[in-house]
């Protein structure tokens, strides 16, 4: 009794120290269990290379279980990376030599680690045989990817499809493409700057910057809705062109739309009406809206991408204001970004962070880690999303994307023809949209370079993808 009284303070100190030691050990365990995975995946972790000596690089699978990248080991121990679908998955799966790209880069560390049964692993190590690395299961769907690849055909451009409720990327195609099986042989010709095909390695879906054309009218409409409470009362008499301060904006191929309200302007993609709307908008607020929809911002995406830009300001002149309102001007976007905006609209305003790796599993299929969908937050309110959805549905029923009407699924979207040169009539063909059938939903962005009107080229490509996904 007396002794414990005398030593109370010592006991307190002992317990405090034991407490902080427990915290330290707890943190160490926490780090190893929850944090280290992300840390060691960093491309700056030089230790990844150490693993290549001990592990046979794992497979990459589509979400439906088809192997799209594997390593074959010949009897003399030589390893070759094989891509059974060749060009179809070129950019999105990427390549694993000559630096790494695509999912090969994203999932590099998982592919180089083995979660095989530990006795089997020990057995292999004893035999001095390499263990088989884990498989990476992507979010991609073989059919959708193949359809998108075929539908784009010989045209240059990109297709990206996302599941709006999760952010899973279902397809990602970029053309011109390359055969990843040949990467070591064609590398030198691909990277030499004088070669005309030097942009082959560029993933246009994420790194291609294009003028958005009429697809940008989604954002102009949204800003007009925010600035005008009774936007539905808007009417405009389209004479086929609008001239202000010596600058003339024409409707596509000289169409005259007559008296139009907002929803009809959107459905018919009436340039004259939108140039008129643009002139009424507050440029600063417009820029604010665009930035809240991730223009001039970093995108929540793990692979290399380009930032979209929107530069309208107080100082912009009439010409730039009118051009910007119809998606020309200096605005530039990536297909990825447009697909994300479309996906958020389809998902009632909430953007799900787009991702490519669904899960990792050991080579025999036992799950190691499952990636869960992550919300980025609301890009627009549910009410706004509802209105834009209605407008986009109207484009299919009454507007420029009638090809998509009357299908087993409900489609909605916006077409675009983005002029990219001074030569009249040369334009990129755009379509952004989504479709659903019951619970199943898909959002996408399609761009076909230099093809012409969106309704003629991009919409049929989208239709093929929708058909393949729903049927």
């Amino acid at each position: 009794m007396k002794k414990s009284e005398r030593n109370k303070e010592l006991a307190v100190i002992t317990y405090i120290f034991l407490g902080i030691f427990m915290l330290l050990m707890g943190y160490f365990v926490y780090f190893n269990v929850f944090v280290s995975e992300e840390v060691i995946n960093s491309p700056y972790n030089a230790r990844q290379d150490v693993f290549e000596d001990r592990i046979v690089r794992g497979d990459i699978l589509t979400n439906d279980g088809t192997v799209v990248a594997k390593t074959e080991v010949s009897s003399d121990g030589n390893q070759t990376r094989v891509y059974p679908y060749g060009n179809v998955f070129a950019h999105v799966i990427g390549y694993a030599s000559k630096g790494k790209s695509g999912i090969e880069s994203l999932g590099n560390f998982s592919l180089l680690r083995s979660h095989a049964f530990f006795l089997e692993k020990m057995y292999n190590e004893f035999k001095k045989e390499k263990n088989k690395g884990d498989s990476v299961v992507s979010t991609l769907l073989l059919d959708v990817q193949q359809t998108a690849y075929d539908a784009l055909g010989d045209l240059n451009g990109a297709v990206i499809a996302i599941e709006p409720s999760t952010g899973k990327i279902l397809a990602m195609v970029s053309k011109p493409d390359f055969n990843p099986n040949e990467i070591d042989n064609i590398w030198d010709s691909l990277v030499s700057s004088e070669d005309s095909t030097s942009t082959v390695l560029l993933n246009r879906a994420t790194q291609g910057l294009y003028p958005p054309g009429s697809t940008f009218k989604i954002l102009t409409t949204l800003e007009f809705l925010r600035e005008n409470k009774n936007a539905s009362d808007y009417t405009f008499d389209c004479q086929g062109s609008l001239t202000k301060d010596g600058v003339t904006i024409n409707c596509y191929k000289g169409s005259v739309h007559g008296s139009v309200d907002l929803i009809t302007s959107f459905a018919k993609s009436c340039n004259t009406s939108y140039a008129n709307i643009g002139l009424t908008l507050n440029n600063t607020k417009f820029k604010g809206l665009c930035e809240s929809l991730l223009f001039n911002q970093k995108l929540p995406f793990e692979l290399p991408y380009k930032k979209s830009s929107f530069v309208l300001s107080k100082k912009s002149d009439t010409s730039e204001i009118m051009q910007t309102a119809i998606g020309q001007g200096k605005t530039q976007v990536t297909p990825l970004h447009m697909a994300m905006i479309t996906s958020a609209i389809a998902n009632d305003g909430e953007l799900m962070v787009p991702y490519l790796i669904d899960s990792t599993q050991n080579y025999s299929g036992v799950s190691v880690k499952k990636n869960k969908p992550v919300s980025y937050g609301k890009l627009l309110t549910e009410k706004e999303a509802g209105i834009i959805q209605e407008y986009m549905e109207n484009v299919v029923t009454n507007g420029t994307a009638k090809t998509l009407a009357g299908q087993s699924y409900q489609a909605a979207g916006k077409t675009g023809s983005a002029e990219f040169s001074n030569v009249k009539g040369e334009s990129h063909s755009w379509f952004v949209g989504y479709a659903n059938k019951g619970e199943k939903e898909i959002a996408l962005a399609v761009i076909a370079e230099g093809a012409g009107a969106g309704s003629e080229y991009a919409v049929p490509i989208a239709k093929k993808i929708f058909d393949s996904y729903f049927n």
Partner: protein
Amino acid sequence: MVNIIVEASKYLIIIFFAVYAYLCFSVFSNRKTDEDKAAIFSGQNRLMFFIHFIANVDILIKSENKEIIIFYAYQVILLASILILYRFLYPKASRLVVNNMCMLLVISFIMLSRLSLDKAQKQFFIAVISMIITLFIPFFIHKIKYLKKLTWIYGIGGIFLLAAIAVAGRVSYGAKLSFSIGGISIQPSEFVKIMFVFFVSSMLCQSTELRHLIKTTIMAALHVLFLVISKDLGGALIFFIVYLVMLYVATKRPLYALGGLVSGSFAAVIAYFLFRHVRVRVLAWKDPWAVMKGEGYQITQSLFAIGTGGWFGLGLYQGLPKKIPVVEQDFIFSAISEELGGIFALCLILVCISCFIMFLNIALQMKEQFYKLIALGLGTVYGFQVFLTIGGVTKFIPSTGVTLPLVSYGGSSLFSTLIIFAIIQGLYILRQDEGENNDRSKKEKRKVKRTKRKDEKVRKE
């Protein structure tokens, strides 16, 4: 064949060390008789030599350097000598503390041999010299009765050394830490730590009146101040905490400790805004990834090492610990974690905790206030330093650049830690004598126990 050995040894080392760490704690179980304990301690010795042997086979195979064989033999001689000499010269010393001391040295020799044989040999040489010197310390603690009267020699001497280093020290990694005498670099603050504990113990055991406390506090503050001037932040923090702990235990007033803690936090905030190198450390701690190529390089490399090593480690020579700057010193824990594994690293923390408990345990048992405070002070120095270094390299707290006692490379650190361990042994021996002279009731209890045990033996027979 080589692979079988290397792979199997990786797991064997983990298993043996886990058992060793377990025994550090299971030995305190009430049901254990003295014979049981002796068996456990001998078991720990065997485990240590197993680990030492296996790891050196690994190192030999991987480095293919035949020098390892001779170096290994020298190490075995040293370790065996320590164990035998302690048992014969000081049969009353704590065997657990001796075992842990040797175990930590073994880990140090293994890791340093793997990282740099040259440094390992230097470390070994210092260990030999230090062991010879410190072997006499328990004897002196026992014989010299006027240790507590040398108050101002400790105090003034310590401040003098720290002031000298602040003025004339050599700068390394932004801090002034060392002198160079005759080609040997010495870090006086490692030794001043011990003098400081002696000074504070001797002051506080004389009296805990306010005037006396103020005098003591001013002296303590001067120590800390000179360390801050030398930019030795880890050192300053250790002195500060040690003083607060000793003050609290000696005065039994939590308010003093709390007041000290609050004013210390204020001082830390001021230091943050005043000194760039403090801000850099905090910055590198908060988000090392943002400054990965600059201030955060060391800590991110350390986290790569620990993370990549995982629970079972990559195996000796299988990782890239040399990517971490100053890995042999402040970041040795990361190298251990990378190559020997997270489980091994956790067990290492447990062994350090076991040492700390033994230090505070002797403080608990000492009757004389002076010795009690010394055990407490040295225990705090040890425990807090372990926390600072491991917490720092795992990014639990900002890195302060202190070494892991007995494991990190560094002569002064090794020597001073061996002194601390020897002092603690001296106190254990002192305590046993105290017990034999004074504590009659205990003796009687022991008698009862002994007869009981005899009865049991008789029955068994």
